[in-house]
């Protein structure tokens, strides 16, 4: 059996040299676990409400979730900081090569992982191969009773049953802001727009922006020494940096 040690970690390109286009920094020390990001994400991206029964089968749908972990033995358990988990927009994504339909592909222009819903046939290989477990599958056409359809975001496709989906780093906002900047004949400014989760966060624990711009707030933050990238040793080149105990 192949173990992690056999994989010669030194050969895996580590994230230090990898610079994506868009990136995110999440400060776990100031995250209060209030779930505002989860709600904002669902609103922005037309994520259906799955309901109690299907959630019980483990079919709940979120593009971002707050993970909680405990340390120690009962009764001396201590909760570690909340950990918002979302698609890490890997530079070398394990989900991509396994799709038999080429529905999850890498955007060369935006350096993001795309999920092309209309191309997806729902094999769910990608979700099984995602080390962060951040992909969710539409098991049904979930009901949206009136007046909920009125709050659907017209810039985001409403997905059907049998389709995989995941965080897009709010690509609709990225493209919108780029389009606006282009119309005004300028470059996109740092902080001009942000993702729905970062916008909703009352503690400002989430920062989003250009990674390839050394002046931007995210790229400055990401350089801090206590930044951690999750499961970096798998060579996924994630674009989300976490701070814990800084």
């Amino acid at each position: 059996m192949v173990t992690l040690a056999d994989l010669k970690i030194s050969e895996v390109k580590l994230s230090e040299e990898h610079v994506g286009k868009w990136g995110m920094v999440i400060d776990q020390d100031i995250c209060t676990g209030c779930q505002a990001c989860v709600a904002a994400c669902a609103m922005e991206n037309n994520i259906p409400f799955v309901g109690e029964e299907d959630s019980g089968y483990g079919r709940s749908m979120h593009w971002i979730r707050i993970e909680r972990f405990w340390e120690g033995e009962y009764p001396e358990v201590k909760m570690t900081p909340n950990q918002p988990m979302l698609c890490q927009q890997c530079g070398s994504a394990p989900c991509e090569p396994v799709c038999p339909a080429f529905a999850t592909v890498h955007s060369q222009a935006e350096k993001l992982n795309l999920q092309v819903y209309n191309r997806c046939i729902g094999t769910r290989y990608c979700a099984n191969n995602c080390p962060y477990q951040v992909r969710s599958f539409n098991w049904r056409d979930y009901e949206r009773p009136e007046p909920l359809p009125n709050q659907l975001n017209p810039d985001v496709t409403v997905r059907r049953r049998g389709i995989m989906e995941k965080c897009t780093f709010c690509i609709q906002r990225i493209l919108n802001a780029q389009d606006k900047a282009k119309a005004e004949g300028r470059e996109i400014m740092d902080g001009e727009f942000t993702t729905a989760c970062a916008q909703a966060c009352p503690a400002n624990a989430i920062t989003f922006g250009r990674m390839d711009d050394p002046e931007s707030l995210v790229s400055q933050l990401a350089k801090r020494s206590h930044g951690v990238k999750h499961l970096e040793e798998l060579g996924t080149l994630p674009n989300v940096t976490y701070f814990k105990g800084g």
Partner: protein
Amino acid sequence: MFKRIFEWLIQPLGLIAVGIALLALFSLAAYGLYATQQPPEQPIQFPHQTHIAFGIQCLYCHPGAAKGPSAGIPSSAKCWACHNQIAKTQTSALLAPLKQAVESGAPIEWVPVAIVPDFVQFNHRAHVAAGQNCENCHGDMTKVTVAQNPQVFNMGWCLNCHVKSADDDQEKLVKLSDCGTCHY
């Protein structure tokens, strides 16, 4: 049983019956195809050609095309700005629904013609800013009454023009053929 039916079918009368049935199926299919290519019934037979002949700009009625993703259909208030000063408005049967809509305040329910599916994000602004004429995609509106599509808006059509307009600009080619540009 099947043998009896088969024997009946290969006699002359049976062959004629089969022929008629095939012909009926074929014409039904042909009619179905034809029907998908017809512009839908609109609440008002709005004559594009006469209005454009007066020199009204497309952007006067569809101003969104220069500013954002969707071009927009004019509200009845915009029609009324001209039409309440035109004598024909009071008498024309064609314009009766417009008069009614303005008086009752109800919107005119135009039937969409130029549409792409929900999973495609189209943006007029980028195209108009890049110097694409309305005619390139919507055909010559000076010749039609209600709008109709000169071609189907399928993916090959979009990509053909994108590849052509990118020319040798590699960065532009990557951007304009990236799935994330149109599908999200």
